[in-house]
């Protein structure tokens, strides 16, 4: 176990090293940060002085070694735009993103398990077919569109008038399909509760939760169909296996067979995929956070790219790399707990 963790730690260091080299190598193509920092009429001599002060005129290796020296001591450089250490900026934006990912994960878990299991048990029922069809559509709609549609329906509101207003049923249908809006469409709201350090939470107040709902749904919308289909497929396979047939033959209640014996084995591959997907989801938040102006890491990263805020870009990429390594490690640990036959160190038993 210790050996495994140490190995993973070394992985993380290696990942950070490779990412930092890559990020540094492409920085010249990210644009000129000076242009964003000065007014249009500033003469070239002033620009050069600023470039010199920020060390942008040095050769690649000099810049990289300087960066690496500081990075080893935990100093990832200074964001040009925020005028403070890049790591601090990321730490400030991290909780918002993690809360969003947490809320989306909660939605995915709470919906995908029951729906997936149900449609595996009753594959021919109308409800199952509906969910399978819906999941195909859901998987193909880009998150941008989902978000805009959600905002239109629940924040701005829509007025439906396709049914004849004069008839009673028409008016009722029009009213039924029209929405009032009023859900918040941007930001985290002003009603956050401070927890600790940089962490202000949306989860503690009604207003905060309202702000969280739409972004979380649109973020969840990409992964939800995937998990429904995955759980259904795994469950159907498990239900064909010998031990389930045996359990049935033994007369164990179907509920217990489904939810205890079968589900446990269904979840093994789901956990693996899920772990990787949570990492991906952190990346997907860039789109969701942009549309909903959610002040998390994704929005921060996109702004940093637009401003060519190179230190922040490099630090962000390295942190995301670490998040991937950490989630994968946790997944492997959980895997070990769920299935004790799996050896973490990879040595033959």
């Amino acid at each position: 176990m210790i050996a495994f963790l140490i190995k993973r730690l070394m992985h993380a260091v290696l990942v950070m090293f490779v990412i930092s080299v890559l990020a540094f190598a492409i920085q010249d193509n990210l644009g000129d940060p000076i242009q964003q920092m000065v007014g249009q009429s500033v003469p070239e001599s002033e620009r050069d002085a600023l470039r010199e002060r920020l060390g942008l005129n040095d050769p690649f290796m000099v810049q990289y070694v300087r960066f690496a020296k500081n990075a080893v001591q935990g100093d990832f450089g200074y964001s040009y735009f925020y005028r403070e250490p890049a790591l601090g900026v990321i730490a400030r934006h991290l909780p918002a993103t993690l809360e969003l990912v947490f809320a989306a994960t909660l939605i995915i878990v709470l919906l995908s398990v029951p729906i997936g299991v149900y449609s595996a048990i009753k594959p021919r029922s109308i409800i199952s077919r509906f969910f399978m069809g819906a999941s195909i559509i859901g998987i193909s709609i880009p998150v941008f569109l989902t978000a805009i549609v959600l905002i239109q329906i629940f924040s701005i509101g829509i007025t439906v008038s396709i049914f004849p207003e004069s008839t009673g049923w028409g008016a009722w249908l029009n009213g039924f399909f029209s929405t009032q809006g009023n859900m918040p469409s941007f930001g985290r709201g002003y009603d956050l509760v401070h927890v600790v350090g940089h962490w202000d939470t949306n989860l503690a107040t009604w207003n905060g939760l309202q702000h969280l709902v739409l972004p979380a749904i649109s973020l969840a919308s990409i992964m939800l169909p995937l998990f429904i289909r995955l759980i259904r497929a795994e469950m159907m396979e498990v239900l064909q296996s010998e031990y389930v047939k045996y359990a049935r033959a033994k007369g164990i209640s179907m509920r217990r067979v489904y939810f205890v014996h079968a589900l446990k084995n269904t979840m093994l591959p789901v956990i693996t995929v899920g772990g990787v997907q949570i990492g991906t989801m952190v990346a997907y938040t860039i789109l969701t956070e942009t549309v909903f102006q959610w002040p998390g890491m994704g929005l921060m990263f996109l702004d940093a790219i637009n401003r060519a805020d190179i230190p922040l870009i490099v630090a962000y990429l390295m942190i995301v790399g670490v998040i991937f390594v950490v989630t994968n490690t946790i997944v492997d640990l959980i895997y070990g707990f769920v299935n004790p036959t799996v050896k973490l160190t990879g040595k033959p038993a």
Partner: protein
Amino acid sequence: MTLKKTLLASIIGATMVGGAMLPLTASAETLRIGYSADPETLDIHEQLSGGMLRFSHLAFDPLVRWTKDFDFEPRLATEWEQTDDTHIRMTLREGVTFHSGNEFTAKDVVWTIERLQESPDYKAIFEPIASAEAIDDYTVEITTTEPYPLMLNLATYIFPMDSQFYTGETDNGNDKAEIVKAGNSFASRNISGTGPFRLTDRRQGVRVDFERFEDYWDTETEGNVSSIVLTPISENASRVAALLSGGVDFIDAVPPNDLERVRESGDVELIEVPGTRIIGFQLNQEKVEAFQDVRVRQAVDLAINQEGIADRLMRGFATPAGQFSPEGYSGHNPDLVPRYDLERAQELMAEAGYEDGFTVDMIAPNNRYVNDAQIAQAVANMLSRINIRVNLRTMPLAQYWPEYDTRQSDIAMLGWHSDTEDSANFFQYLSFCIDDETGAGQYNYGNYCNEEIDALVTEADSVTDLERRNEMLREAEAMLYEDVGFVMLHWQNLAYAAANGVDIEPVVNAIDFPYLGDLVISR
């Protein structure tokens, strides 16, 4: 099914509660703003940008400010007098206090002007000023090196800072007055101005909070905004959605694609203002020999249908231009209008010996100006009709400027706003013969050079008789028009939108600095 119903019920519940809470959160005097960006720093001299100047008008007051019709309105300076060619004497308002409680006097003005002369971004603009001197507590005399007609234009940029507040050393030994770009200076974190609003909280990139300054000197204004919450919403569609859903009361930069939608919504009001930023193209004479021929340049200008672009591509969200200066500017010449004439353009190409045309590269940004990439595409198509085949490359802003600076392409797109709100600035930066010593023609991509125009504009800049000066600048515009030193397209309009009852029309202007201290909200 039950699940769906529960979901629906909870959403309806949320909607109702949200609706019930609305009047509480939006009390009559709180203004919630959704701007496309928040101020980069609190030090108003660190960066010269539209966003910083907007912020300056909230937390500070200028000596004078522009009215909607490009006249000067007294603010912290109540009177001014040109005592001779190089001296201007200003009388300052009495009884003005800074947010820190310090009293505003002439020495704050002197201190601010001296700081502006140190600022990398303002240095060039404030070059004409030799010195500023406090005659007494409420009189300041400004001396220029040469006769300078634009002293009042400069005064719109002088937002007096609290010299006492910004003097001294911080705990770690730095000068409180220092200007550090992208650094952690005292002035970038602390603020004391005289403006209508006092900054109370700031989380960069998330929100900025202001309260009305209780001791504000202008007690005659009808403005009744007691607090402001400014949220930066950079995504166009999200900003519009935030306004339509009632999340904010006031937004800037409504995108052309959403104009119709905002206009037709009953709950919000759209205000369009003709802007002052000229959009156009520069023909690189260094790279393409043909562009040295005035007939070819004229042909390019004649082949472009400015009206069509403004009308269809911009959906009326632009004013077609035949010159740099928009209406209201000193050098605006009403005779110079777009002159689309394809046949004449083809003739000119033939006369110049380029009937079969040639192939050129063109670069344009794709996220800087309204519809920039589409405009470039349209212009490329129009040029193909006079057999100029265009290879267009568009790129995001961060990559565009470094590319622009190399001057390696044949045609480049540029938008320019005159920092002095005056016509001469356009010439000095965009069409003057390039001179690395003086910095003239810094953005003259095409290396265009017409010494007659340069001489005329330079002379105009030392004429203090404004009527004569305007006449000279109008003449310069006409010469440039004939010589096609810059291919003009249009002035990009400005569009603001606000919730009903938020009466923004009187406080917005072509300069893009809403005077929110005077904003009246009646709900």
